[in-house]
């Protein structure tokens, strides 16, 4: 479904991602792990067209998307829940959710139904629907960003550190949500620093280091890999 080949991305003169190739099959949950500065965020941004790659190709559903604008990528059902939340500080929670649905694909659920679903997943969003996002706590904001992404009815969801700043109890909820999204057939590309969690959720994983893919395997295999254990899990 999503195929990245030979991706290169540069910031100014410096190349941050050199030659990354990865594929995510239909309905698969793939995770991308790597230490700080490895290029995970950069890769996702390139896929969602926030950054323009300097080399390589990106195809989604068989179509080249590396020359599109971000809104065109979303229209095709590829939705990115970004690192750092990227909310609209003076807009309310509800407005965020409405905007999320604005360009989404029509799906089985109508807007009202979808809204109810998101509210059920994260009751705090319902409770705070008229609060301005800028005044919410860090974790609450993270949920707004996630909820906004869900409202777009994604075919493929890219999550950049979705558990960042969440209390353990909410992390569990979120993990359940991701699992059930995956269960309903949504394709997911997950970037997550809670590597153990990510590997337990995922089917397959890529390990990124300094802008290159250094390992690629089924999540279970990697979870057991001693190199992963020492480098990422601190065991």
């Amino acid at each position, binding site marked *: 479904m999503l195929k990245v080949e030979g991706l290169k991305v540069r*910031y100014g003169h*410096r190349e941050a991602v050199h030659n990354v190739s990865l594929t995510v099959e239909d309905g698969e949950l793939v995770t991308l*792990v790597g*230490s*700080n*500065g*490895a290029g995970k*965020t950069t890769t996702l941004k390139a896929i969602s067209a926030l950054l323009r790659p300097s080399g390589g190709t990106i195809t989604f559903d068989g179509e080249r998307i590396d020359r599109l604008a971000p809104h065109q990528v979303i229209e095709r059902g590829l939705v990115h829940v970004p*690192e*750092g939340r990227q909310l609209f500080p003076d807009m309310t929670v509800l407005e965020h959710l409405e905007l999320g649905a604005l360009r989404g694909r029509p799906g089985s659920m109508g807007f009202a139904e979808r809204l109810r679903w998101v509210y059920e997943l994260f009751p*705090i969003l319902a409770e705070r629907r008229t609060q301005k996002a800028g*005044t*919410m*706590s*860090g*974790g*609450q904001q*993270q*949920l707004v960003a996630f909820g906004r992404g869900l409202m777009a009815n994604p075919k493929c969801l890219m999550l950049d*550190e979705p558990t*960042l*700043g*969440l*209390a*353990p*109890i*909410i*992390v*569990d*909820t979120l993990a359940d949500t991701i699992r059930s999204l995956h269960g309903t057939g949504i394709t997911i590309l997950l970037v997550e*620093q*809670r*590597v*153990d969690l990510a590997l337990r959720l995922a089917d397959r994983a890529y390990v990124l280091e300094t802008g290159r893919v250094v390992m690629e395997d089924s999540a279970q295999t990697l979870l057991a890999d001693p190199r992963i254990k*020492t*480098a*990422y*899990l*601190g*065991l």
Partner: protein
Amino acid sequence: MNAAVQSSTGNAGEILAVSNLTRIFGGLTAVRDVTMTVRTGEVVGLIGPNGAGKTTLFNMLGGSLPPSSGSIRFDGSDCTGAPSHVMGQRGVSRTFQITSLFPSLTALDNVRSAAYRTTRAGWGAAILRNAAYRREEEELRRKALEILAFCDLDHRADTLADAMSYGEQRRLEIAIALAAEPRLLLLDEPAAGMNPEEGQRLVEMIRRIRARGVTVLLVEHHMRVVASVCDRLVVLDHGVKIAEGPPAQVLNDAEVIRVYLGREPVDA
């Protein structure tokens, strides 16, 4: 003389004393009647569900948000409502939950700029280039590099803060806070965006910070970090302190598990 020392430190060993602190936003009470103390040299963890009021409490301690009521004593003197720069001058440094650094300066300059509190040679000295100035600059540079190395960023000394990845920026923030040589360091989710291995390095770092004589108040959702570095935990829920005590005890408290931890007492 002894008396002076006594009075300036207040209750022996108590660097921070918060009593009945409350903050109200419109109709919402974000922090309600919180009383807690931190002793010199301690590492205290402040945990609680999202929206419990941890950051709000930090904002009040750091002086960027005036409390609605209650009082804050730092180092024996009343600091309630003191502005941010006064708290900074007195030795309270903090990191912010939302990444906050000097974006278009290099890592090294971020740290050097942050050392304001500990340097003396101002514009005049720089114009004269006297010995004291040169010595201090040399010393500052050395110290800044040392702090960068301490935070595992020495290889990034010349990188613009803006051009760093999220995790690196989080470490740079700690470096910035350390450069002020604080007496009390407030860390708001420093491990966010770090993987468990990096989290463990952070634990090491906090230990070394404490070894430097800095008292630490830590907000964190990574229980492994919290459990392994904190002497004591304070738990907030809906702005109210619901538990306090050593990690082993607090993390097994039924109420804390119910509102905060969920199924697993200590997640990895």
